[in-house]
Structures are given as C-alpha cells and as structure tokens.
C-alpha cells in the first residue's frame, strides 16, 4: 500500500487550455503529494472541470504539462486511465443493471481477471459501505447511494489517484458526513485525492491542500493554513448589542477609535457591529472599554473565525473587481 510522503504524485506546470480565443485555463501550476487531499475550489466556469479532464486524459492541454506519477497525461493514455479513478459530477447510470453487474462491467473494462473481480467487488463495496445495495438497480438508487457506488467503481482497479468532481453535490447532511469519512479513510490508505466542491465548509474539514481558481487562473494554492493566512490576514470582530437602538450610539463612540482601514459595518436588524482589524488584543480591549464607559450595553465582543468561504469570497471579489 502506498504511504503518504513528500513525493508529488500529481503535478501541473503552466497548464493552459484554450478553446479558440477563450482561455479556459491559464498557466496553472500545482503539486499534490501522496496521501494528500487537494480541495479544488472555484465558481462555475472557473476551469476546475477542464483541469480534471486534462488530468484524467479526457482533454488535451494547449500548452504546459500535467503529470500523474510521472506519466504525462496528454500522451500517457491507457497508463493514466489505470493510475486514476475518476468520478464525474454526473453518475452515469445504466438502465436495468444491478450494482454488482455495474461494477462487474467496469471491472472487466479495466481488465481485472474474472477470478479476482468477484473478491475485488466485495472489497470495494465494503469500502464504500454499499454491500447491502449490491442487488439493487443502479437507476433506482438515491443520489447518496449512487455516490457510494461511484466511489466503489473508481476504487475497483486500485488507482493511485482519485479525482472526484463535486462528490458532495445534492447529498443530505448525513450522506455528506459519510462521504467525508469515506474520503478521509481513502486518504489514510495512501490514496491521493483531488476533490472539487461548492460546499466549502465540507472541503475545509477534509483538505490539507487548497487551490482556488477563478477565470482559469490559479489565485491561491497551498496548505489550508497558508491559504487562510495569505487571504485572510486580518481578523474580523463582532460586537453584539442589547437592542437595535444601541447601534447608533455604539457607532458614534467607535467612529473616532477605528483606524481609517477598519470599516465599521452595522446591522440594526441584528443589533450588530462588525469591523476587520489587525490590532492586538490589548488595543481591542480599549474599544470595549470605550463602549462600556459610554454606557452602551454590550452583550458579546468576539472574534469571528475566518473560513475557506471567506477566503474564496475574497479571491472571487478581487477577481471580479479586476475583471
């Protein structure tokens, strides 16, 4: 079984894809190490699926290099298909086919000998916790069940890299938690995973590396901590007041205290004030002291933890303002 290490299993260098004049992907360079989970984030049309298609050998780059385990994705053909397990956002079901028959077909398509195939199907059904649905028709399965069968399918030929396009899309909270656990288990087995998702809190819980793309360009790349540090260097503070009538008073107290780059945002409906800051704890305590001194009833004075969603929104905002 492959072990987690420093060796880059997935690597792209200045990867570019153009459709005529339209640049779908612009000089993307990333590296994913063995056993890592890369969260690939971006709005619709950002170039995520284009990158994935190049990595799985379904699309050719206009320029640049994409490699998986040292094999070139553009020329590697069959080798790449054996190295990668690809789960597209659309399940790809067949009518009148039971789950076991479905897996048997893909096992045969990957050239797994018949004698081994049966036990391998049992194994992957076990990994995906889908053994109980082996006799069900694939088209009659719920979305969550189909995603499990999809995971079982991509595990059949024991690939080194698993690429999953929006695996959590349309899943209920319970199924999402199960999917998360399953992906973490696969990474623990030494599989390298690339996962795209719109559900960013989900990604932040499983990914160790994050790549944010917008408009075909890589905007941020690195470990989750690095990306958060780079994109959200300033903390966000919230002041919860007793009633909405206190908002105006609190604003006038803090107006002179706030620095020019600390834009004070207020929400009367929520009886809330919010401001971004880089000040120390002691300096922030001064703000609280001013409010109490002025007789403003403060219920809570707290730091709001930034998450991947904030980082993504920040990048998306910057990109749209540049555009």
């Amino acid at each position: 079984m492959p072990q987690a290490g420093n060796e880059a299993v997935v690597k792209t260098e200045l990867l570019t894809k153009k459709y005529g004049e339209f640049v779908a992907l612009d000089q993307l360079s990333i590296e994913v190490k063995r056993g890592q989970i890369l969260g690939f984030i971006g709005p619709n049309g950002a170039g995520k699926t284009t990158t994935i298609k190049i990595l799985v050998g379904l699309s050719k780059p206009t320029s640049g290099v994409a490699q998986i385990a040292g094999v070139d994705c553009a020329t590697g053909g069959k080798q790449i298909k054996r190295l990668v397990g690809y789960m597209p956002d659309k399940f790809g079901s067949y009518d009148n086919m039971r789950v076991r028959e479905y897996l048997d077909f893909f096992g045969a398509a990957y050239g797994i000998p018949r004698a081994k195939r049966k036990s391998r199907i049992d194994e992957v059904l076990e990994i995906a916790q889908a053994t109980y649905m082996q006799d069900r028709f694939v088209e009659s399965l719920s979305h969550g069940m189909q995603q499990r069968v999809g995971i079982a399918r991509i595990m059949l030929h024991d690939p080194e890299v698993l690429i999953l396009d929006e695996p959590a899309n349309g899943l209920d909270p319970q199924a999402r938690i199960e999917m998360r656990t399953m992906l973490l288990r696969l990474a623990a087995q030494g599989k390298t995973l690339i996962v795209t998702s719109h559900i960013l809190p989900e990604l932040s819980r499983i990914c160790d590396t994050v790549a944010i793309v917008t408009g075909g360009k890589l905007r941020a790349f690195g470990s989750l901590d690095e990306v958060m540090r780079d994109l959200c260097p300033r903390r966000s503070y919230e002041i919860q007041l007793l009633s909405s009538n206190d908002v105006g008073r609190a604003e006038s107290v803090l107006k002179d205290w706030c620095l020019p780059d600390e834009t004070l945002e207020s929400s009367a409906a929520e009886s809330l004030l919010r401001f971004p800051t880089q000040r120390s704890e002691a300096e922030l305590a001064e703000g609280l002291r001013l409010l109490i001194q002025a007789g403003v009833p403060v219920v809570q004075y707290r730091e709001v933890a930034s998450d991947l969603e904030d980082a993504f929104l920040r990048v998306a905002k910057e990109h749209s303002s540049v555009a």
Partner: protein
Amino acid sequence: MDNPVLRRELMERLRSTKTIASLLAVAVVTSALVLLRWPSNATVDLVSQGAMEVYQPLAWGIAMAIVMLVPAFPATSIVRERQRGTLAMLLHSPLGRLSIWSGKFFGNLTLMIVLIAGSIPAMAACYSMGGASLFQQILPLYVVFLMMAVLYTSVGLWVSSYQTSADASLRWTYAAVIGLAALSMAPNIVLAGKNNWKTRVAEKLSYVSPIPALSQLTSSNDISLQAIRGKATSQFLLSAGGLSLILTLLTLRRLHPSLLDVSRSAGKVTEQRSSAMQWFRRFTFLVDPDRRKSGIPPLINPVMVKEFRTRKFGRLHWLLRLVAACAVISLGLTVVAASGTVSWGVERIAAVMVLLQLALLLLLGPSLASGLVAGEIESGGWQLLRATPLSATKILSGKLMSVIWTMLLILMATLPGYIVMIYIQPAMTVQVQKVLISLAISALLVVTVTACISSFAKKTAVATATSYGILFTLFAGTLLVWLARGKPFGKQFVENALILNPAAAALAEMRMPGMEDLNLTPIAWWIGLGMSFVAMVILSVRTWRLTCPD
C-alpha cells in the same frame, strides 16, 4: 387558445426548425409529383389519366407521411414531461387532466393539419387536371387523413402515459401504429374468400387500417382488398373514431398523480425468492433476467455483455420468445401454403414472410441501435467509458455485435420456414439463398445507419425518431414508388428507386406479384453493402473522435 398547455405545445413545435423542414418537404415532394405529370402539350386527356397518375401516389405518399410523422411527437409528449419533472407541476396545477390531454392532443393535431395542408396545392392541381372527384374522392380522402392523425395521436399519447423512457415510448408507439395500419389487415387477407364468423371478425379488424379506405378513395386495383373496400371509408372513420375515444379515456385515466406514485424497484433477485418461484421462473423465462449474474467471462467483449444486460427489450429471454414466435409463424405460413388451406402459391407466402421479417428488422433495428452512442452520452456513461482503458474499436465492436447478434437471431428464426419451402419446391433453393442474403444486407444497413445516426445525436429519442424516418423512407418509400409504377413513374425510375432497397431485392427474388419482371440482384446488394460501408466508416470516425481527448 385559453389552454396554456396547447399554447406551449404549439409554440415549442412551431419554433422548431424540424417543423419548418417537414412543411417544406411535404410542399416540395407533392409539387414535384404534380410537375411530373402536368400536361405539357396541347393533347386533350379525355380519361384524365395524368391526374389519376399523380393523385394516387400523392394520396398514398401523404398517408405514409402521416404514419411516419404523427406518432413521433405525442409518443414522447407525456413521458418527457415525466422525465423533466414538469408532469408533477402540471398535475399539481389547477389544470384538469382534460386540459392537459387536450392541450397535447390538439397541439399535435393542429401541427399535423398544417402539414397535411401543405399538400392542398398539389391536390388542387390534380382536381384542375380533371379526373379526381372533389366530393367523392378528394374531400373524403382528407377526412381519412384527419382521422389517421387523430387515431395515431391518441395512440402516441396513450403509450406515452405508460412508458418511463422516451425511446421505449417511440418504439412501442411505432409498433402499435404499424400494427394498426398494416398488420390488422393480415387476418383478413389470409381468411379471404370464406364466409364464417372468423372472416367477419377479420374483416372488422381490417377496418382499423386506413389501407382499405385509401384503396377505395384512390380506386386501386388490389384484388385482395376488393372484398372489403366498398364501405371501407365509413367503416374506417367509425373504427378509428371509436378506438381513438377508448384510448383517450384510458389516457385521461392515466393522467392522475398516481402515475408518479411509483416506488423505487427493490431489486429482488431470483435467489431471494422461494424455491417454487425459482422453478416457475426458470420454466417461464428459460433465461431468468433476475437471476444473479456471474461475472463477464474472459475473452468476451464487456461492452457487448453490458449492452445485452441493460436492455429491457432485447435481453435473452425476450429474444428467445421472439425467435420462437418467428419460427412458429414462418413454419405455420409454410405449412398453410403446402397443405393448400389458402390458394396462395409458395411465392406469395414467401413474400409475406419477407415482409414480416422486414417489418421486424425495421422496428427492432432502430430501437436497439439508436441508443448505442446517444444513450451513453445522454446517461453520462460515455464519459465513464472514455475514462476506462477500453479502445474505441472495442467499444464500437461490442456495441455493434450486441445488435448484430440479435438481428441474426431474428433472421435465423425463419430458417425452418424456408427449409420447409425448399422441401416443397426444391427449385427455390437459389431463390431462398438470395432472399436470405438480401435480408442480411437489409439488417446490416438498418444497424449501421441507425448506429451512425446515434453517434451524432445527444438523445436516444432523437436518434430513434430520425432513424425510423430515414429507414422508413428508404424501405417503405421506395416500395411506394413501386406501387406507383407506370403512374407516374416509369419502369426505369422504379428500378432505380428499388435498387436502393435490399429488401425489395428479396421480394423480387421471391417473384412477388408485380415484381416478377424486376431484376435487382446483385446491384441492390452492392448498393446496400456500399451504403452500410459508408455508414460504418462515418460511425467509426465519429466514435474514434468521441473517445479522443477533447
């Protein structure tokens, strides 16, 4: 136009380029027929021969267009709403089931009336040439056309309300329409000349078909139809009207929220049933589709196995039933001919067998092959296949072989009948061989053309409808030209049209009445093989391109 369903249906159809193309096709073809026989000299045609030469093929041509075009839209109408999830919205809206049905029914009917109206200028020209009576022929003919449109629209909507996929709905609708239009005539033709209750039932059944009515209104001279065509028009209008009404009531009954209240299949396998049930299933199915399958054997193309397993119709137990039915019918026909039960010669029986086989090939071929590529693209399976190490050649060969084996089984099923025929009349050995070659080429043409169309379509239903249209034109259209031999088409023109149709070569080889003087082999074989080869090359290139990285 208060009905929002009707408004939407009409808008959707009239905005489609296919509708405009169909309208233009009707106008161009009917005008061309008139131009062929428009008087160009000063000679007076006292018996109006020219007008009748145009009127007859025109009437049959429009009738064939109705059979081909009318079922296509209603067959997918309700099932598509169901697939898109809009049927639930419609059923939940204050619109009653009658409004939903009438919107769809009149939407299709209006469009068909517009299409049929495209032939009015040509028909008016026939009338102005003299010969065709306005009140005794032309007007009743249009009433028959209208009733055909009503009946086939009702059939399409009814079938559509039962199906869960658009292509299955198209397949069953075309089967039902062909059954009503042509096969309903068969018992009457077989039992003709007797006077008992069976003959009377067969005669009543034949009135569901528009053929006797059309024959009456075009004054055709087919002897087999003479007995029933005296009152054929009124009988057809009554039968078709009654049947349409029954189908409408059945469709209205189906348009209920319970239509969507279907649980997901539990997927029970035979091994989970009682041993008595397991034995019963083994006896009734021979090859039980619900038995737990063993893995795909080595050296067998997995794509072919997958294709067999994913079909509802076309799985082995269905094929065995079909083959058994074909074998029994062909043997029965041959025995009937041999024992002199009917006064037909062996040639006529053979022609019926060829026609039945052709109908099966035409009906089953497109329904099996139209989803080969389009179905994969539609379901998202193509993306998965591309991601596997399977080559384009292996994917294509697996898919084609799954259909070719089925077609071969259908062809082989009638062999016992032909063997008995050769036993009765040994001189027919070479003829039978030529017929089988012609039918094999026809099957190949059906498969390759349909698969080729499928590789260009993104939806199976589109590929199915297009394939039926093209293949019906090729196989039935050329026979229609033959029906109009000498009026207005000359022998050379008829022969040129028929060499495009390898099934016509089979009929000519069997010396079918009216085809005795035609010599279509081997040229029809070469042309059939050539067309198949071209379709195969296009299909291969297209499949290769679809499997290549973008």
